[in-house]
């Protein structure tokens, strides 16, 4: 990279202002989110899930088969023999009964009994203090040591499909993400600071872009690609933040990013918190937290049966663990405290009318090249 600051300053004052960023002598760096998924913490799995009763896909299938009348031995034989397909699979998924008719359990998860999956009883989870009053629900963040709210992790953390350690993504989210990356528009982050080498105030803007993300030759999301910002205000979020010791945090605020099926229909966090590290390789890495709609989460999980493992068990666990926004009539909490891990790679961002509003900033010293077994001089 070269002349990054100059280029940005020279080209983008008006656009920065239009995008909600006003500092007169600031530098604006652009990124696109290259990884987004539930923030997992599985180092203490044994102590967090002492019953270890949820098992994986086979165990879930056995439970389902038993729920329609098979003995454990019969269910085990069927599930482990891989014979659960065709009419039997249909029978399993259509076992909910509503108004006397068989309907899909994935459309009517409340019409089948709660499988009562094991939930996390451990001490640690990533997150933020969202103001939850129930001390018994609090986790300790392994990075900050602070008490945090993250009931989503409590609900899903003992399921096999969410037992993933970064850079691995939870399986259902990985499947959705990989399907989405090369088709659906990406999400952009712009960070404006007076001096990125010093502590101080920053401004953060989140937007959708008009193009899908580009992959590089190694299959990762490409650094320093160019994207145009979607001018729709729907996914435009301006946040106040602070840079301290290379970590960016924000003043809590609601955020909304329109997403696409089969990923989350929206990334909507109420009372959103963030902490993101500016890494030496130019990338961002960190966590976003906030209250997430239990319905949105369940929609992602139940819309792709199989990918989410025990979708119905997760649905009921999330419903039980939801800890905010009670429905005035039923008292059911409709939001759940949650934490999400994000990574973002440097990207050039422009407005649709051609102004470069943020630059990709890559490290000054590229990685060492490798010797290859060629015969050239």
């Amino acid at each position, binding site marked *: 990279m070269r002349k990054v600051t100059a280029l940005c300053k020279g080209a983008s004052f008006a656009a920065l202002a239009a995008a909600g960023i006003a500092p007169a002598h600031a530098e604006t760096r652009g990124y696109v989110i290259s990884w987004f998924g539930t923030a997992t913490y599985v180092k203490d799995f044994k102590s967090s899930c002492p019953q270890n009763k949820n098992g994986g896909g086979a165990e879930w299938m056995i439970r389902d088969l038993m729920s329609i009348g098979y003995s454990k031995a019969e269910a085990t034989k069927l599930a482990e023999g891989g014979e659960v397909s065709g009419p039997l699979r249909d029978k399993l998924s259509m076992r909910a009964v509503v108004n006397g008719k068989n309907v899909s359990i994935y459309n009517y998860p409340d019409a089948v009994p709660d499988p009562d999956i094991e939930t996390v009883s451990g001490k640690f989870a990533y997150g933020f203090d969202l103001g939850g009053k129930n001390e018994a629900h609090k986790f300790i963040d392994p990075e900050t040591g602070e008490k945090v709210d993250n009931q989503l992790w409590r609900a899903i953390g003992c399921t096999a499909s969410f037992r993933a350690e970064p850079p691995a993504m939870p399986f259902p989210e990985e499947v959705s993400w990989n399907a989405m990356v090369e088709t659906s528009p990406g999400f952009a982050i712009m960070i404006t600071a007076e001096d990125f080498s010093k502590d101080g105030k920053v401004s953060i803007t989140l937007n959708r872009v008009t193009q899908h993300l580009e992959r590089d030759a*190694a299959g990762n999301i490409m650094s320093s690609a160019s994207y145009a910002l979607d001018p729709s205000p729907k996914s435009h979020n301006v946040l106040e933040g602070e840079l301290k010791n290379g970590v960016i945090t924000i003043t809590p605020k609601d955020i909304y990013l329109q997403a696409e099926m089969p990923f989350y229909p929206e990334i909507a966090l109420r009372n959103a918190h963030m902490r993101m590290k500016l890494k030496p390789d130019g990338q961002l890495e960190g966590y976003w937290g906030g209250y997430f709609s239990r319905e949105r989460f369940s929609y992602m999980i139940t819309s792709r049966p199989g990918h989410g493992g025990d979708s119905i068990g997760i649905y009921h666990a999330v419903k039980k663990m939801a800890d905010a926004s009670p429905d005035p009539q039923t008292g059911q909490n409709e939001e759940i405290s949650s934490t999400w891990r994000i990574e973002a790679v440097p990207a*050039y961002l422009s407005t649709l009318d051609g102004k470069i509003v943020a630059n*990709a900033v890559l490290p000054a010293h590229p990685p060492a090249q490798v010797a290859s077994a060629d015969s050239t001089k």
Partner: protein
Amino acid sequence: MNKLMKPTFSTAAAAASVLSGWLLAQDVSAAASAPASANAPLSWRLGPGQYRQTIVEVFGPSISITGRFDPEYRQDGLLTIGARTASISASGVERYDELAENIAAQVVDERNRDTLIPCKPASATASDEACARQFLSAAGRLLYRRALTEEEIAASVKLAGIVSQAKHDFYAGLAGALGNMLLSPNFLYVYKTFEPDPEQNGKLRLDGYSKASVLSFFLWNAPPDDALLSAAENGEIHTKKGLRRQVDRMLASPSLENGVRAFFSDMLGFSEFETLAKDPMFFPRFTPRVIDQAQEQTLRTIVDLLVVRQGDYRDLFTTPDTFLTRSLAALYGIPIVDTTDNGQPERWIPYSFPADDPRAGILSHASFVALHSPSGRSSPTDRGKALREYLLCQAVPSPPADVSFAVVQDTNHPVYRTARERLGAHATDAACSGCHKITDPIGLALENFDSAGGFRTTENGAQIDTSGELNGTKFDGPVGLAKALRSDPALTACVATRAVAYASGRTPRRGDAELKRIQAEFADNRYNFVELLREVALSDALFSVPPQATQLVTAR
């Protein structure tokens, strides 16, 4: 190929035998008298691009051509010259057989026949001599680049009839006869044929069809169109005025872009992209898409400057103007505004590098710096060698067989952190230093570009020194090199030499008077490349009769 055709052109192996024997008879006498590049050869094998373009010109772009061709090889710096001595292997004949069968099937397919076949048979389940004759004689004229003889037409019509009757399908017969044509040496090879020159008693001249093919493949990389074949048939092409009219028409045609692209793809060695790869761990932005786009960037830049703007050839090496896609911009580390809708193919966007940018001219394109680098590191030596060989027409010797490259290749060397330092240590070997003196001072100026063409200022944490030298001119950095190259008279002399060689199939001898004249005209025309093409196309050198042609005619 249709089974019923086998008795005529039996199996692919037998076809190979027939083809090889035929070609041997045609070329042996020519090859025996002199090396191909020293004398103008009497035939050449259609290159993949020429084959594809011929099918496009004759049958349209909807005919898909899938499959590989026999490998090409480079001689005297050009694949086009290598094609003059290229044979077809037995496996190659099988591939051509498959291509021919596939193309013929597409032409007669129900989706295409109403457009591509100018008549309808009386019955679709029986032979129809009149319709077969109409189609095969017209298609054959374009495929063979000459009118077919009555014997050739009759044989093709007969073959079509036999197959039609046997299969109760007129179009199967037509496909069989067309496939046979596509496998014929008359299609796969372009022949120069000669006739007595009415202007010079006792001398020979190229016949009109041969002149038409030489011109069209030179300027369009495509077979002659109907107008050019007509000019060959009515003798217009033999008159100075008529020839000039045809050349003017061809230079004004949109097809010229195709010819210019083919010439520079050959001259710049773009066939090497087929085997180009970079280590994705270290050069992740060098994607498969970039490999295709790197060539296209340079070709678009060339066409824009030399054809559209009729600019100075030397400016190719200093121009800030080019075209980029999002993928290329990411590789180069620069922003680009592309508002293409999601999911649409990347657009090519005109782009001008700032005046003080280290990237200018085609030397800074990935098509040069990445093409001439190993997969895991840059190579000043490879780049310097390529510049001398491809752009200055100067030969650089290959390294001795017993030289150790250990230090040069050790990019993690604890002491020699930059390529300059490693080459400095390597070149202390007297056996190496001579050649490195003519390559490395050029290539070191391009060290701001890594193996994939990305920009950098450091290597292993050490600042990169990009000072260099070209034939006594010292400079700093890639832009300095580009300016020095622009001023080197060998640059323009080389492209003129390559143009003559590309058109005629032979490299002109040193001191060749006609080449000198063409080079002088090129200078007088301010290095206008289109004018260079005109000079070559109208040159006596292009249609000269080689001595071996006279010997061949006399012997017969």
